[in-house]
């Protein structure tokens, strides 16, 4: 009797450690965030009155500061997602195929491509800021050597976006490479052997075997990269400070400003909830399109 009971309990015991951390660091803060967003929440004020949906209303009423800056920041974030996600997924896949093929020094290349991932955002942005500097940067030096005009990489809108995306790709593509590499190594070799016997070219093999087999990995990588790109903060915060003006200010930057410069925690929490709704909707959308025949 007791044994049977224990056996039933076992799976729950296995998930308990994770459940504790999940509750403490994810579920609780998320619900607490919703609670805060319904209040006028200023950290140093004793009174934190309930104000219903007023914080949300401000976001959707034109003429308020929040309305003016939040949607600008959200559109900027969407732009970043649209520019960076395809690049991160494709380059991650290409690198994985490269280091999975029969080249020399495979291990060395794998390490080189992965190394940037372990750097902190501060180091990465500092390195790129020095290279991208308008007057003294390495990149403009090469441009000048090639007879090209210097570019103000971080203070014009278009070059600033390019710089942010390139920096992000350099920094995090290695992570996607690792995931794709694991996916590639899971594909059974006999599929390729059979295809070769049937006379399939390299590209046909890639198209009909590699890509379909990688579908679950690709779905996972795309969704995770999208979520990560939505949460972009460090790169624009350090490199452009949201400039010129507010043209590269992303959602998390504005939320951080509202919370820690203006000390309007309630309003900031409301914005965070709206952003996460966007992420959820886009995530569902991606799953719908890509997972029609994915089996786990």
């Amino acid at each position, binding site marked *: 009797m007791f044994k049977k009971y224990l056996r039933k309990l076992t799976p729950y015991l296995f998930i308990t450690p994770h459940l504790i951390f999940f509750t403490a660091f994810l579920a609780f803060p998320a619900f607490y965030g919703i609670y805060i967003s319904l209040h006028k929440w*200023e*950290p*140093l*004020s004793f009174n934190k009155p309930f104000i219903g949906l007023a914080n949300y209303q401000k976001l959707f009423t034109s003429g*308020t*500061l929040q309305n*003016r800056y939040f949607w600008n920041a959200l559109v900027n974030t969407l732009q970043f997602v649209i520019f960076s996600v395809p690049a991160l997924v494709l380059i991650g896949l290409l690198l994985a195929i490269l280091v999975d093929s029969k080249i020399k020094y495979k291990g060395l290349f794998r390490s080189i491509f992965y190394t940037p991932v372990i750097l902190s955002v501060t180091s990465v942005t500092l390195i790129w*800021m020095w290279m*991208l*500097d*308008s*007057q*003294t940067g390495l990149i403009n030096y090469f441009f000048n050597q090639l007879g090209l005009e210097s570019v*103000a*990489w*971080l*203070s*014009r809108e278009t070059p600033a976006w390019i710089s942010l995306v390139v920096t992000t790709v350099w920094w995090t593509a290695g992570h996607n490479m690792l995931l794709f590499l694991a996916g590639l190594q899971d594909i059974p070799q006999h599929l390729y052997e059979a295809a070769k016997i049937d006379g399939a070219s390299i590209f046909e093999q890639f198209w009909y075997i590699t890509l379909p087999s990688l579908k679950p990995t690709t779905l996972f990588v795309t969704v995770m990269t999208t979520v990560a790109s939505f949460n972009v903060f460090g790169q624009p915060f*350090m*490199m452009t*400070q949201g*400039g*010129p*003006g*507010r043209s590269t200010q992303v959602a998390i930057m504005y939320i951080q*400003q509202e919370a*820690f*410069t*203006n*000390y309007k925690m309630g309003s900031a929490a409301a914005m965070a909830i709206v952003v996460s709704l966007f992420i959820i909707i886009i995530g569902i959308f991606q799953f719908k399109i890509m997972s029609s025949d994915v089996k786990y």
Partner: protein
Amino acid sequence: MRKRVKVSVFLVVILLLTTGSVLAEEITLDFWNGFTGPDGTGMGKMVEEFNKENEGEIEVEMQVMQWGTYYQKVVTALSTRSDSSPDIGIMHVDRVPEFASKGVLLDLDQVVADLGWSKDDFSNSVWDAGIYEGNRYGIPLDVHPLTMYINKDLFEEAGLDPEDPPKTPAEFMDAAAKMTKDTDGDGEIDQWGTAFPPLWPGPEFILPTLLRQFGGSFLNEDGTEVVVDSEESIAALEYAVDLVHNKGYSPTDIQQDGEVTLFRQGRLGMHLNGIWMISGFKDQEGLNFMSYPVPRMGQELAIAGNSHNFVFFRKAGNSEAEFEAAAKFVKYISNNSDKWATFGQIPARNSVRDTQAFKSLEHQASIAQEVDSVVFPPKHPIASSILTPYYEAVNLAILGQEEPAAALKDAAEAGQMALDEYLQTQ
């Protein structure tokens, strides 16, 4: 078994020691600040000396963190109203109204009276800056103004006297013009007279300096209207834009700290940045530089700056004895702040600025000549929310992406929206 005896003896000794100190009623004060550079090392030494002098009575425990996270941590600690929140803190003088208006700072009028300090002991503006709505909440430790760093070699090359730096608008323009040139003959300017960067410290220090020099201000007298789109303010911004884009005496599109790199490389004649850069520039090999007060570029001399102030935080169990201990500590540090100056700042107290020790600090003493012209950001609980749109307008105008007048009009509107929202809830 033997080991166990040893351990328990050890524990008993520890117990006796700790209760012993409790009996002596040593007061422990938590002192938080953001002095992460050499200034923190200096402050740490002063705290150590203070603790040695007051052994058994007062123990100050200093915690240092980045300024950026410091304010967030202070806010978090104070919001819980717990015992773990700090007793003493350092606060930039422009942040004092924000915290004072929330009632988390202690009124220091009595401390100042007990110490026998008055306005005459401090440089003018800094003394008044720590007062909010009639009460004193901040005791100034130092003043850190915008500073003009000059490259002596470039001055001499251009036929200028590095011992006699520009002081008037005409002299400043003339020097800037003479040092802007193409040194390698490729047809492009690669050495500049000065630099007005569109990012820090441009919008936060350089433009506010110009704004005040041209006679403008951020808020009207009674603090109900944002006036950053006034004629004076537009004139100040147009002056900067003209210097960058039409005269070309400053590089365009400077990135964060790009002008610092240029100055370090010896390609910038007059560099405007905070006084805190001195020690970094001293470490730069082959950089022959000197520090001077920022010259007059408009009608009257004014130099934007800030000041580190001591504040006492309100806590649940604030006792009289703790308050007195904190006051003793502040007096000790203030009296010895000439030591502090060696780490880059100008002491707020006149008597300390007059000491031989301070006067022997070539750079600091030179900058301190104009300490009475230092002006501070507007005194308002939501100053940062009001000023952020102004900083963006300056950024866009100096980049040449918006006209000064239009950008400032937007900034005044956005700032006014933030101010109105605040005034409604008062």
